[in-house]
């Protein structure tokens, strides 16, 4: 646990590397809490961005879907393409069947909610991917965990748990090994990785940008001409990392939604696996 916290830089040197705490801005309306503390905390930038993302996504898609024209305008076309992408290449292709449409709102909301919140990390001034805070990642992964377990129970009844962990056609002595593995894999590792994957990639990307920024600031402020010259290299490198991070932001939104769809499909067709 402690190893996960970035080591505070040694103080004898001039440069103090930013810690994760530095990725957490002061609360806008503090009520006395600190980041990394379970229940306390104020209303911070992260929460504001989360709410902003809901407003932005809802506004855009309400506008895009409001005028239902046969030949779409630019906004409607963009909205339809975005909706069609999640609907067809995630919902239809992964879940399939007749009733995949029932789950499209979940996938659609997940994709754009995660995407916009990630992209916040690439927009100057906002510059905070909200899922770099673990609470958000746990929350959204928990929603999908409950969703697909719920789907499985609704479809197969209590038998779902047996279907999910006992593979068919396996001799009993192998089952002794397989069943515990399946339980751990399906009901513990799956939701944990679903959330941590998103959280960790966002945090890492955010930290790299923060680190590069503070390093450049430090190098320029030293007054040492050589260090100042070297800061250009850091700048170039940080731009490259920024591009990579932007790619990862989109990719993680896609991966999160894709996995959600795969889990839902697995729960729906637990008897066929």
């Amino acid at each position, binding site marked *: *646990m*402690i190893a*996960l*916290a*970035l080591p*505070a830089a040694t103080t004898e040197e001039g440069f103090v590397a930013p*810690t*994760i*705490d530095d990725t*957490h801005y002061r609360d806008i309306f503090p009520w006395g*809490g*600190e*980041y*990394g*503390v*379970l*229940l306390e*905390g104020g*209303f*911070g930038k*992260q*929460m504001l961005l*989360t*709410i902003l*993302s*809901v407003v932005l*996504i*809802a506004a855009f*898609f*309400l506008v895009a*879907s409001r005028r*239902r*024209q*046969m030949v*779409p305008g630019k906004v*409607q076309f963009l*909205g*339809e393409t975005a*909706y*069609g992408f999640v*609907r067809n290449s995630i919902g239809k292709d992964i879940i399939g069947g007749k009733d995949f*449409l029932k789950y499209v*709102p*979940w996938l*659609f*909301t*997940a994709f*754009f*909610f995660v995407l916009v919140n990630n992209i916040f990390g690439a927009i100057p001034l906002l510059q905070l991917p*909200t899922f770099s*805070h*673990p*609470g*958000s990642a*746990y*929350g*959204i992964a*928990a*929603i999908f965990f409950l969703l697909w377990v719920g789907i499985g129970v609704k479809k197969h009844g209590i038998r779902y748990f047996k279907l999910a962990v006992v593979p068919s056609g396996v001799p009993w002595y192998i089952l002794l090994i397989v069943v515990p593995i399946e339980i751990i894999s399906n009901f513990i590792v799956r939701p944990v990785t679903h959330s941590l994957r998103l959280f960790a990639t966002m*945090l890492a990307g955010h930290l790299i940008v923060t680190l590069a920024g503070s390093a450049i600031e430090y190098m320029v402020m030293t007054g040492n001409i050589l260090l100042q010259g070297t800061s250009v290299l850091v700048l170039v490198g940080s731009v490259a990392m920024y591009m990579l991070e932007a790619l990862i932001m989109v990719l993680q939104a896609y991966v999160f939604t894709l996995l959600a769809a795969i889990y839902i499909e697995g729960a729906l067709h637990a008897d066929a696996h």
Partner: protein
Amino acid sequence: MLNAAIMAAEEGSNPLIPNLWELLVTVVGFLVLMYIVRKFVMPAFEKTFEERTAAIEGGIAKAEAAQAEANAALEEYKQQLVDARTEANRIREEARAEGAQILADLKEKAAAESTRITEQAHVQIEAERQAAVVSLRAEVGTLATDLAGRIVGESLADDARSSRVVDRFLADLESSSSAGAAK
């Protein structure tokens, strides 16, 4: 958890411990967005897709119908063209036959006419010959009598006698010539 919080406070925050307010905001935000999507956005898009599919399929059906109609019309025109061509050939053949008929008729008529004209000419010539013969007979009689009177020196002015002599002469002449013709 308390332990972790204390450690976090000492060593810097533990990044794995969530802030429950943030968790709550995220879950509520997601569910609100989800409600809006399910209630407004998705039905609107689905309806648009359906209408568009219907419009496109309707358009395709219409185009197919139009294509079939055009094909039928083309077939009909082709058939009509064939009919017209046959008709034209028939008419041409008829006209040719008729022309030949007319030509033959005209030839026949011309032949008949020429025969008629020839016969008429023959008749006329015969009549004129007869007239010439009659007028010659009178004239020859007079001339012969005059000539004979002069040669003989005796007056043959006595008309009765001379006329008798001439008639006898001519009758002899005729009988000898008809006897000659009979021979």
